Each structure stands twice: as C-alpha cells, then as structure tokens.
C-alpha cells in the first residue's frame, strides 16, 4: 500500500539527525567552509549516534538500516548544510564499493573498523574518476600490474573526495586492458601504504567544506587479497552506483529544502511595497513552484531508495531521482538567492553558498546528461553497460 510516512524508528532517527544538523552543521557552516573540514567534536557526535555506518549491514558492524533510512538521514543532514554533510566521516561511497564488490571476508575486514568506538575520524575514499575519463570507464589510464602476491598501481585520480587523507582508498585500475570492463579491478589501499600523493587540492565553485583532491599513485604496492573479489566488477558496479546516486540525490533534496525553507522564512518577514514580499504574486508563485519541485524530487528519491531496499531493479528510478534532484537543487537555490535579493548575494546568509554547492553537486558524480541517457535507454529498452 502506498504510504509516505516514515516508520516510528525512522522518525526518531530523523528527529535526532535534524537537531544534530541544526546545531552542528547549520550554525557552523561558514566556519566549516572556511576551514575545509568539520570540527572533530562534530565528527565524534556523528559517529556516536551511529550515523557514520548507518547503511552498513549489522554483520559488518553497521546499523544495517537500509537505503530508505540512509536517504532520509542524508536529506536531514544536508538540510543543515550539504557541504558539511558530505564532509562527515565513515566509509561513505568507498563502503558501497566494498559492499558491492567485496567477498564476505573483505567486507568484514575493511568495514568493521569503521564502527569501532573511537573511529569517529575514519574516512573512506572512492577513487574511480580520472581527468580525461568523464564517465567512460574504458578511458581509464590507471594500471595495476601483478607481481607475485602484490599488485603495483600507477596513475592519477581526479576529483577525489578525501583523496590522499582517507583511511582506506578504493582505487579502480586496469589489470588487463584487452578484457574491457572485466579487466578492471577495485583495490583497497589501507592507511600507511606508501605511494599515494596529493598532487593538488582542488578549489571548486562549491562544496569547499569537503576535501576534494587530485591524487597520484606511484608504484603503490597492494596485496592481492585487497583486490575486491566477491562479485565481478561489471555485475557489482551497477548496484554500487545506484546507491551512490540515491544518496547524492537525497543530499540535493536536503539542499533544495534548506534553500526553500530559508527563502520562505525571509519572504514572510521582509517587506516591500507595504507588505511581506511573499505576499506579492510574483514571488509567491516562484515559491510555490520551488516547493513543488522539491517535493517531486523528494518522492522520486524516496521511491528509488525504496526500490533498492526491496531488492528490485532500481536503475530507472535512481536515474530519474538523480536528474530531478540535481536540477531542482540548482533551480531552487538560484531562486532562493533571487528572493533574498542583495542579501542573498552576500555571505551573511547561506543561500549563496548553497547555490554554489548545488552546481558543484551536479557534477562531482557524473552529469545529469549521462543519467538522462540512461533514462532513455531504460524506457526504450536499450541495454547499457554500467557507468
């Protein structure tokens, strides 16, 4: 039966997360943006609430709460501030790669440490993208060469979240180019292994609260048992990307909600021509459209996450939610700045930051165009390779 209400358990988590997002993220967002990181104390609280591994199954130490709950949590965190939400600790998208591709033993080995008490400042980093690669995996240049019980990795990775500072890096590299996708492997590089260098800390339009870097791998020696080998890459990657995109879309929804909410509150108190600006038709229609866009994106995201939890094919729903949420976030944040006028353009208010974050979000994990292509392929029944 169709139902849009979160369970009691979920609601309790949402309430808790909302409070955390308000006091720990929203109120400190400018400081966190300036520092390029969130405070240790914030990470500690986040970890102690169990949020850093909320979507990791219990057998690997997490809370095992599934994608719907994870999406709700990310939405609330991003309602606080999306940049800060993305800078929080945990295995993150690298965890999804391990869950999707790793063996039982690997999942336990690499994921369990993240849920240990005191592991509040542990980060995972997923390293797929390269400067010349776009979303085309066949253009990957990073190589892994087998030598006895090791692989030697060489290459460069671009736009890497926590690249070079994470506790584990999951690096995709070409083992055998002649085999296409089947010739690509995903390697877990643990902290302390020499050869990973930050070649550049990237300065972006938005999302400057998280550390996003370019890294070089120079003869990085990875033991063979760190090559994820539970599920073939081609088969496992689809599920990995679906989870990543839903989480990313949920964050975009949180951002959109935050910008909308801020603009609505402002339009209630700011007066022009003798009444609150929200009561002028031009602005009230704009706000109404924004609210509709936010909700549409929100339900698409919830539905996609729900499909994933049901174990059903979710590719179409995921792509739709990704495109809708990212485009909505850009439009809504743009309009929120517009509604605040000159005040929206200065850093006394967060909307200019969210507008920069929104545009950046739409690009750090593949483009909406790429996902539109997938949507078309799905509705037209055309098979596509993963990416």
């Amino acid at each position, binding site marked *: 039966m169709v139902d849009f209400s979160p369970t009691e358990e979920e609601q309790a988590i949402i309430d808790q997360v909302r409070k955390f997002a308000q006091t720990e993220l929203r109120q400190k967002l400018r400081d966190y943006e300036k520092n390029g990181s969130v405070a240790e104390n914030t990470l500690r609280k986040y970890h102690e609430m169990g949020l850093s591994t909320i979507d990791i199954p219990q057998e690997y130490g997490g809370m095992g709460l599934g994608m719907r709950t994870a999406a709700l949590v990310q939405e609330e965190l991003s309602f606080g501030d999306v940049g800060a939400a993305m800078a929080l600790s945990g295995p993150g998208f690298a965890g999804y790669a391990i869950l999707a591709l790793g063996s039982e033993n690997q999942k336990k080995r690499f994921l369990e440490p993240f849920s240990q008490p005191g592991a509040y400042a542990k980060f995972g980093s997923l390293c797929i993208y390269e400067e010349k690669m776009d979303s085309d995996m066949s253009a990957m240049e990073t190589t892994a060469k087998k030598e006895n019980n090791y692989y030697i990795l060489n290459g460069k990775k671009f736009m890497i979240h926590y690249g070079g500072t994470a506790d584990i890096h999951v690096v995709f590299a070409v083992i055998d180019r002649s085999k296409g996708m089947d010739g690509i492997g995903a390697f877990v590089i643990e902290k302390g292994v020499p050869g990973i260098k930050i070649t550049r800390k990237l300065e972006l*339009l938005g999302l400057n609260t998280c550390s996003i870097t370019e890294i070089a791998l120079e003869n990085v020696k990875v033991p063979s048992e760190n090559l994820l080998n539970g599920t073939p890459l081609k088969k496992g990657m689809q599920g990995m990307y679906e989870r990543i995109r839903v989480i990313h879309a949920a964050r975009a929804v949180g951002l959109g909600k935050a910008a909308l909410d801020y603009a609505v509150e402002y339009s209630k108190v700011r007066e022009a021509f003798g009444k609150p600006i929200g009561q002028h038709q031009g602005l009230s229609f704009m706000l109404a459209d924004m609210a509709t866009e936010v909700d549409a994106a929100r339900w698409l995201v919830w539905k996609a996450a729900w499909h994933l939890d049901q174990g059903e094919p979710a590719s179409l729903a995921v792509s739709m939610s990704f495109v809708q949420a990212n485009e909505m976030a850009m439009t809504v944040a743009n309009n929120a700045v517009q509604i605040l006028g000159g005040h929206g*353009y200065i*850093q006394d208010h967060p909307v200019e930051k969210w507008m920069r974050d929104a*545009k950046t979000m739409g*690009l750090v994990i593949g483009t*909406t165009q790429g996902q539109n292509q997938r949507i078309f392929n799905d509705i037209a029944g055309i098979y596509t390779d993963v990416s």
Partner: protein
Amino acid sequence: MINFELSEAQKNIKQMVHFFAESQIRPIAMEADKTGEVPRDFLKMVAKMGISMGPSPKEAGGEGEGVGETKDRKGVSQVHRITIVAAEEIAWGDAGIVLSFPGPGLGEPPVRIMGTPDQQKRFFGILTKDDEPHWGAFALTEPGAGSDVAAIAATAKKDGNHYIINGAKQFITNGARADWNVVFATIDKKLGRAGHRAFVIEKGTPGFRVGKIEEKMGLRASETAELVFEDCKVHKDNLLGGEEYYEKKAGFKGAMGTFDASRPMVAAMATGIARAAYEYSLNWVKENYPLSRPIPKYQTIKDIFATMARKIEAARLLTWKAAYMLDMKQPNAKEASMAKAYAAQIAMETCINAIQVMGGHGCLNDHPVEKWFRDIKVFDIFEGTGQVQRIVISRRLMEISGESAA
C-alpha cells in the same frame, strides 16, 4: 531604416575595448577575485587613459571633461549605443574589475540629470583633478529598502544652511573609496517620493563613516560597502539641483530616470559575461571532446550551445533597442527593463550550462567559468531585481501609470 550593422565609430570602440579587455583585464581577473583587490597600477592606468564604465558626463550632455559628443550619420548622438557596445566587450573581460573602474560610476546620471551646472563642474571636477584614480558612487539601497525604493528611511533635516543626515545605506558599489556618494534621504516620510532629496556627500564629511565591506558570492574584486550617517552635516550646496528643483519635480524621479540609462548598460554587461562563458566552454568542448563520443551525448551538448547562442543574440538585440531609444530620446523604461531582465536571466542560465558542458572541470577555479557563474547572479538583483523589471514591463504593457514600482 532598420539596420543591424554597427557604425564605424561603434566598430572602432568595440575593437579597441575588446583588445583592452583581452590584454589588460582578463590576465588580472582571477587573482583580483581571490584577493578582492584590483591592482593599484591598473586603476591608475585606467584613470590616466580616461576610460570609464559609462559615457563621460560631457558625452552624455552634461558639464565636465570628456572627449566630446559623437554623432551618427543622421546627426543623432550615438553615445548610448557606443556605451553598450563597449560595456559588453569590457564585461566580457571581467565584470568585477569593470565595476572598480575609476569615475563617477552610477553617480554620474543623477549628478548630470539633477545637478546644476555649478554642481556638475564641482563634483565631476573632483574626479578628474589629477591622474590618480577617483570614484563617485550612488547610494540609494538601504538594509530595509531595496526594490521598494520609495521606502527609504534615511532622513534629512534642514538646519539653517545645512541638512542633517541620519541613516544607513547598504550594498554601495565603490562606496568606501568614493570621493563622493550621491545619497538619497527623505525630509518627511509621509510625503512619500515627494519628500526624497539627493545629496552629494563627500568623503570626510563629519558624521559620515564607512560600515562593513561585504563578503560576496561573486564580483569579489568590486568593493561593496555599507555607509553610515550619524548627524552628518551637509551644506545645502550639496543638495543636487538646489532646493527649487524639488518644488517642481520629485527627487525620486531623478533616481528613476538614471535607470533608463543604467539598465541597458547592466544588460550589456550581462550579455558580455554570457558571451564569455559561451565562448570559453565552446572552445573547451571543441578541444577536449574526442570525436568518438556517442552521438546522443553530442546532441545534448549541441542543443545547449545552440540555445546559448540564440539567447545571447536575443539579449543583445533587446539591449541595443533600449540604447537606441535612449539616443533617440524616446521613453525607454519598458525596453530597458526587458533588456535587463532578459539578459541577466539568460546570462545566469548560460553560465550554469557552460559549467555543465565542461563537467567537473567547469567547477574548478582553473577556469574562469565558475567565477562568471558567481559574478552573474547579482545582475538579476542589482539595479532593480528581475521581479521589479517585470513590474515595470507589465505596468507599461497595461498602461498603468502608478508610481509604486521602480
């Protein structure tokens, strides 16, 4: 006769300004954005060369120094058309830097339109007294009065030969560094617009101080200041137009009249930024996209570029029309608002899409597109928000003569 070809004078200016923008402005733009400062040497050079953001007071028909009136072949002044052609080119270079150009800036039109010949000579003279850069500025917006200009709360109280000004102005471009600010205040709020007065308040006037300098999303090379007036004593000689002026007309009209000229200029600048983003991203895509890309992806990108090109062209023509009417001395409020609302909106859209087609690279500050994205947003806000422009347009369409909108 309908004609879309630039005149010789317009072509020459366009070429000259483009060269200047490309060789002098572009190279310093990213750094100036980062530091929030335009190199002093550059500003000195601009002051020395006499380049300003708009037409010089003399060219626009006022008193003061200038290169003289330029007429088109029908003998009509083409100064506004030349101005917008130049504004597009120079903003193509960098808008943050352009707004920092020495000169009267947005303070020029009110001084020229409302000021007596003596006042014009005096205030424009201050700006050209030596080779150093000098600024004038326009202070209308207040913390509580933006689009609703009539709601300004700064007060002016007559006191013998002086006026005592109290209040605060916000978001004033070049307000802190300016030698003088044109400050709007009311002698009696109950009078509405008839109570508005425009004063030229010079730097160093007792009771006038600069508040905070704003941290902005974009245009970070440009100075945006808060101005505070606490029992600021201004001589009545600094009341623009003199006291008699306000018996005939509302001071507010003076403020509004300046928009007819400034809005096409803002539109032209927005068009320039849009064009910059469009050209940059197009070149990037040409250089970086291998021909092996699947056709459907290409189609999306082709569609994006075709749309950008079409909208930029439309914005430019709306802008030209508004400036043409200004030269012809025809009322152009509707056309000026159309140009401003449309150009600012499509320029934002163009910058969003320019980043989009460059993928992740577009967000990196290795490329200027992310900067233009930040810069352009405010073009739909300052000089009347897009929403206010729509009020102006629709009022003219429906021939509503009400004065409540800017």
